């Protein structure tokens, strides 16, 4: 083999650098494309919807007049449904993930469960809607209520939470477990004081990703019968109702409702073009809701990571 001259070596290095730069440029281009799309989308909604960003828009109910129509019932509905979803899905999902990772023996049954959980994450959301219509709405008699919607979306995001919980737990070094057990902790104590707290940042990320998906879902909510026109809020606990009785602590759970995506969908399909402004404004609000949920997740993760001392 012939030794390379300095020029040749330089040429090889230059070629390598060029390839490097081309790849870098491609990467930046892809990133920019994604960012431009999202910025354009948000900018478009803000520009179209800007005239509706008033306090009234948030405090008014739906109306046939575009300028008076607001999103009160929609954003309250979305928040309450998310609350039920989180309350149902988080304990179940985290417990399931913890069990599968820390307690369950590896055998064909857990393998089947594992495969099914991954498969469930890919099931189209409308299928969950159909299932929920049969089970929650009719079988359990929850009706077309916040309860039914919340549980439906909880089912939908359960696989996401389980999978991210397991991944977060798997990332904890085995020596933590061993150390804990070595000083005499039971399996439960190990989980309670070490595994779950250390896995919390990862679990939270999964929870928020799940909730962010759930808040934008329309299909299953329509299937179980969310309403389009609803000009009242679910009864707040301990307030006086129309018939003079007092609302119970959980009456709101069984109240009829609507959510943001349905309101947006309704506005875009109306004959009067003035409603497009409302749809754009509501779209931006929904986006802001998702982004602020993500922001909370990032903040929580950051805070919790700081507290972990291995």
């Amino acid at each position: 083999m012939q030794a390379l001259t300095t020029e040749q070596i330089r040429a090889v290095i230059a070629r390598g650098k060029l390839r490097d730069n081309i790849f870098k440029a491609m990467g930046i281009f892809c990133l920019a494309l994604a960012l431009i799309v999202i910025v354009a989308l948000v900018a478009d909604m803000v520009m179209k919807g800007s005239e509706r960003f008033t306090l009234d828009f948030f405090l008014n109910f739906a109306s046939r007049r575009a300028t008076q129509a607001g999103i009160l019932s929609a954003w309250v509905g979305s928040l309450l449904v998310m609350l039920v979803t989180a309350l149902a899905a988080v304990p179940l999902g985290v417990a399931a993930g913890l069990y599968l990772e820390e307690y369950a023996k590896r055998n064909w049954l857990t393998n089947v469960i594992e495969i099914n959980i991954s498969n469930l994450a890919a099931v189209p959301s409308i299928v969950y809607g159909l299932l929920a219509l049969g089970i929650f709405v009719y079988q359990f008699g929850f009706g077309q209520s916040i309860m039914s919607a919340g549980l439906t979306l909880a089912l939908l995001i359960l696989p996401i939470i389980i999978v991210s919980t397991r991944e977060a737990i798997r990332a904890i070094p085995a020596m933590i477990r061993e150390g804990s057990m070595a000083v005499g902790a039971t399996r439960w104590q190990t989980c309670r004081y070490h595994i779950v707290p250390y896995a919390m940042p990862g679990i939270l990320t999964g929870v928020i990703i799940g909730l962010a998906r759930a808040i934008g879902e329309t299909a299953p909510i329509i299937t179980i019968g969310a309403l389009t026109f609803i000009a009242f809020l679910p009864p707040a606990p301990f307030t006086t109702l129309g018939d003079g009785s007092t609302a119970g602590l959980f009456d709101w759970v069984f109240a009829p409702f609507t959510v943001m995506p349905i309101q947006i969908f309704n506005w875009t399909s109306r004959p009067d073009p003035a409603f497009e402004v409302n749809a754009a404004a509501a779209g931006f609000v929904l986006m802001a809701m998702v982004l602020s949920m993500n922001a909370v997740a990032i903040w929580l993760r950051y805070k919790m990571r700081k507290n972990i001392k291995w």
Partner: protein
Amino acid sequence: MFKHSKLVSALAVAGVALFGAQAAQAQIVKIDGSSTVYPITEAVAEEFQKAKKNAIKVTVGISGTGGGFKKFCRDETDLSNASRPITKKEMEDCKAAGVEYIEMPVAFDALTVVINPKNTFLKEATVAELKALWEPAAQGKVMKWNQVNPAWPDAPVKLFGAGADSGTFEYFTEAIVGKAKSSRGDYTASEDDNVLVQGVSRDVNAIGYFGYAYYAENMNKLKALPIVPPKGGAAVAPSEQAVIKGTYQPLSRPIFVYVKAKSLQKPEVKEFVEFYMKNAAKLTKEVKYVPLPDNAYTGNLEHVKKNKIGTVFGGQNEVGITIEELMKREAKM
């Protein structure tokens, strides 16, 4: 720790769920059904709640005419919006569940055939011409305007129409092709009429159809095509007057609200129906539908008072019924 308290409250929610707390459902008038009738019912519901200072609550969903009747016959709703009369199958379902109802026509809609405003060659069309364009046999064959009428140019036809699940599709195909739901498939179909509005307004060679309200709100972007009535005579463009006179044929159709007889015993439902009929004429016009004559609404109230149960259509959808004929039939009941 907050995870603990979350778990506790989740259990509490589940507990309440199991031991039933369905009490808070009093005083709600529940309505579902057609998206075509929705704007009218929504307007009435909005005004009604205002007039009652929110003492009575009204909810309106859009499950479509068929979906609405399903819930109605399962005894889940008090009123059902319908863009066509109740069918035989639905009548049987309701009967089996012991649900009796009173039929109330609330307005007329004019299905509007629209073209691009820059289209200069189309001044009118006959039902036969529209059929030649839309029938299933035209699929993949009738692709140019001059294939339908030699006087029209040698330019491609771009078709826009309602999606197969809508009552509009059902009515248009029955009125134009002669058989409900029989249509060519190679056209741009959408359940969202605004997609159709956009499509037709951007293409000179486009033609489409949808409810009058969408045309009325977009008159600057679209042109309504006058239709030659099947019985002959001059072509008629859709308008309130033409519908009232019964000359816009065969694409005028009545739309309905069905109310459950049992629900009328609840004072809030009765009050809502009375409010509906008293204000329908004004609100119908506001949302761009054609109101019925005043005595149609008083007639409906009369039926409510005398509890006249059933339909005047016998489970059949009819094409080209005029307001006058409808009124005669309702009166005979």
